[in-house]
């Protein structure tokens, strides 16, 4: 090996310059069947992503409906209209003369008996 004038800094540049002289491979056309395979795979992949989204969307609708039903069932008593006959105590409050007498305001104003 010749060590007379070593120049590691320029060595890379000389080597890169030599490598650039190498002929570039000319076969740049797609191999037979490559484009067909890739196109089919790409469209299938896209369809798969869409179907997964659809499935998730349907599940989300189902879960939302179930939650809605559950919350209605849980709060049924609060939401249901109360018939007057079925709950006389509640209906009684509608009559002013039957108001409870331990109301502080009523006592102060002398309304209580």
């Amino acid at each position, binding site marked *: 090996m010749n060590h007379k004038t070593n120049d590691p800094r320029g060595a890379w540049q000389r080597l890169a310059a030599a*490598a650039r002289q190498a002929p570039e491979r000319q076969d740049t056309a797609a191999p037979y069947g490559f484009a067909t395979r890739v196109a089919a795979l790409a469209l299938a992949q896209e369809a798969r992503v869409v179907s997964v989204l659809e499935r998730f969307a349907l599940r989300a609708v189902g879960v939302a409906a179930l939650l809605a039903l559950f919350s209605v069932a849980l709060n049924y008593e609060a939401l249901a209209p109360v018939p007057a006959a079925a709950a006389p105590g509640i209906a009684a409050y509608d009559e002013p003369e039957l108001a409870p007498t331990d109301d502080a305001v009523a006592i102060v104003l002398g309304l209580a008996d």
Partner: protein
Amino acid sequence: MPDDADQPFDLAGCLERVRQRDQAAARELVEHLYPLVIRIVRSHLPRRVAEEDLAQEVFLKMFTRLGQYQGAVPFPHWVSRIAVTTCIDHLRAQKRRPEFRWADLSESEADVLDAAMTNENDVAANDALAATELVQKLLAQLKPDDQLVIRLLDLEQKTIAEIAQLTGWNQSLIKVRAFRARRKLQKLFQELQRKERA
């Protein structure tokens, strides 16, 4: 009758048809872009990865992200960037770098290295293939990002601005990586010389 090969490729029309899930258009697009993609893949091909597999991955990514393409850059540039980032992802995935030893070089590679390390004679033009092999082995010693920068700069002779466009890295970062890579290569050459003398 006009020949189809003489007609310029209608990229915009083809993309529109691909968006409407036209398989024939997708095939035409792959055939049209294959030379561009395979050149990038070949110049940045990681070890033990088949070029066709990598090209396929690039195209599948391209189709998956087609909805994100806004037309801000020409479509081939956009695809080039996908190809470069796919290659760098594969290079990063290869944790181990092969050891570089003088003893592992072929006779012609050793001659080329010897010629490159001495100022006296230029590397012969007919040794270009050996020089390419040697360059690949040397570059394999660098970090993936540094490898990419030095390949684009010194082998493909791209400008810093072009590399920034291709990789999405800022220009200062590219300069830092190039500096670091060249310093590492310099050290490698010095180490080789020292071992050879010993």
